[in-house]
């Protein structure tokens, strides 16, 4: 009997099978989520310094942008290098509105960042979305330079190189300034956006995104409006990235065009490739990995034992060493794990579950 169960079990862990208890189907997941939730709550209390809370905060901020980019690239198949530009649009919206016009409440400014990101997506989408395939990546690179140039001009004409200093964020009268205060705020926002993205991908719209990616002509024949779907994907993801931009403006406290180098867009692409294409969890994994990497390298390098070859050379060039590791990781994942960490973990989970079910069944047989 055990063999037949194994043959049925592997795929679709989410669907309860006839004759299996609720716990057998969802048990592992519930335990997993519970452990994850506890770990996330305990994390800021147990880490030694606030530097690691800052790292987690930055990783959560990046996760929001990575989820959005992954929907656009991984699900809808629109290869964009526009992350940095849309983050800049969100950040500058927040900066310009709060410092030059009127001091809006924190949450309202975030929403405004999202709205302006969406409007920009509509305008730029008219140009960008006529361009197919890989040329879209080039078009978004061009748009990046144009957008950043405009912000550079504006910034130099108003506040100069120091950039815009953001006001403190506050939610219903509570000021958020310390990293430990930011942590729960960012965690809640990330969970909301991740759940939203997860549901979006299971909706009709999400299926249309996937259809447009895989076979756009076939999708059109089946009644999917291809141009409209691409536009919707572009607008939704740009809104999330604009939101993230406004949020990071508050978190960092200062907005300057120099923070939005094209390398930032590359970084976000690296996140989704390392984490897992078309996967919400993968986006978060990748974002955490890419953001935490420099923190880890900077933590390890000054403590290298001196007998290690090149240890002095490495210590003098921490930043370069970090770049090299980062580049090598990108190459390694594309060559060896092209579907990313999320897929690797999924395989591992299925394999573990198989082992557990097998063992349980064998025990049952022995008992009978």
């Amino acid at each position, binding site marked *: 009997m055990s063999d037949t169960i194994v043959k049925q079990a592997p795929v679709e862990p989410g669907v309860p099978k006839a004759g299996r208890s609720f716990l057998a189907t969802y048990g592992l997941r519930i335990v997993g989520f519970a452990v994850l939730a506890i770990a996330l709550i305990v994390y800021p209390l147990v880490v030694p310094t606030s530097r690691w809370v800052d790292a987690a905060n930055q990783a959560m901020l990046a996760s929001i942008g990575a989820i959005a980019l992954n929907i656009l*690239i991984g699900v809808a198949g629109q*290869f964009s290098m526009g992350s940095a530009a849309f983050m800049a649009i969100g950040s500058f919206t927040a900066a310009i509105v709060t410092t030059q016009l009127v001091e809006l409440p924190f949450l309202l400014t975030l929403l405004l960042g999202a709205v302006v990101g969406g409007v920009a997506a509509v305008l730029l989408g008219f*140009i960008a979305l*006529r*361009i*197919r*395939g*890989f*040329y879209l*990546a*080039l*078009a978004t*690179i*061009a*748009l*990046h*330079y*144009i957008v950043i*140039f405009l912000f*550079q*001009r504006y910034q130099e004409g108003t506040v100069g190189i120091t950039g815009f200093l953001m006001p403190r964020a506050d939610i219903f009268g509570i000021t958020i300034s310390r990293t430990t205060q930011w942590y729960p705020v960012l965690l809640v926002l990330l969970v909301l956006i991740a759940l939203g993205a997860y549901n979006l991908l299971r909706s009709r719209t999400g299926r249309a995104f996937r259809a447009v990616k895989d*076979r*756009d*002509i*076939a999708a059109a024949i089946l009644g999917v409006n291809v141009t409209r779907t691409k536009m919707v994907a572009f607008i939704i993801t740009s809104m999330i990235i604009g939101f993230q931009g406004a949020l990071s403006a508050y978190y960092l406290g200062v907005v300057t065009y120099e923070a939005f180098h094209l390398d930032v867009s*590359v970084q976000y*692409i*690296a996140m989704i*490739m390392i984490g897992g294409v078309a996967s919400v969890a993968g986006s978060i994994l990748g974002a955490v990995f890419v953001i935490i990497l420099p923190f880890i390298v900077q933590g390890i390098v000054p403590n290298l034992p001196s007998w290690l070859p090149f240890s002095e*050379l490495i210590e003098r*060039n921490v*930043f*370069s*060493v*970090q*770049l*090299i590791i*980062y*580049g*090598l*990781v*990108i*190459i390694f994942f*594309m*060559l060896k794990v*092209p579907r990313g960490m999320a897929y690797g973990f999924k395989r591992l989970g299925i394999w573990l579950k198989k082992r557990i079910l097998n063992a349980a069944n064998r025990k049952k047989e022995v008992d009978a």
Partner: protein
Amino acid sequence: MNLALLPDVLAGAIVLSGIYLLIALSWVIIFRASKLWNFATGQFLVLAGFIAATMIGAGVNYWVATLVVVGVMAVMGVLTYRFLLRPLAGQEMYAPFIVTLGLGIVIQGLIPIIWGPNNLPLKAPFSNDRIDLPFGITLTTNDLIVPIVAVVVYVGLLAFLRWTKVGGQMRAANESTILASQSGMNVWLLFGIAFAIAFAALALAGIASGQRSLVALSAIPLGLKGLVPAMLGGLNSVGGAAVGAVFVAVVESMVVLYLGADWSNLVVFAILLLVLALRPHGLFGKAEAVRV
């Protein structure tokens, strides 16, 4: 618009178009052969400059150093293709793009470790006396050598593709990779040759940009900017690269002189956006059927 500045604009444009032509050729040769994109172009260009500057600084003859760097870069091109890009055959189209991005990041990290944080001078053995050209343009030999080398490479490449056996095979592989391989050509060898040629052109571009000012990491964006003349001329048109290079160089030089250096990125990438929106296959490129 001050017309008195025009000779200076053109003088700058002549040198810049030489550099752009070499970089654009590198993009075109690779894309024509293999439909791949090398987004580590800028990093390899700077790397070539650093190697050349070190050799010349150590007393090696300029021309010998140039030849050695061209050879080294050609080998690097072949290795990059063989070990990083060929294994990706059949994967998503963006996979090679991301691998070359990663490679560029690695090189960007290696250069400061090997050469330190400072920029290097690259001394070419040419006089800095100005030579008078028509229309009131004056250029030093140091500057003039760049477009001359670029044109020699360009003409040589066209002749190579037109009249040699390997060149003919490369044209055939560009027309149809599958038919070419079916008729017994070693397509992978042809791709490797294309990478060698492209990286050799890149080495010359790196040396040229180094002797024009300094060898510096800040020249990396030049690689991406060199894609714009390639796109304008047509990514699969070697002939078009020269037209693209001259056009982009003239426009950029005019904008920089009349509006300021800040505007150079804006105008170059605005050209790219226009090309993509209006004529993605470029002025002289052939439109390709879109795979659905």
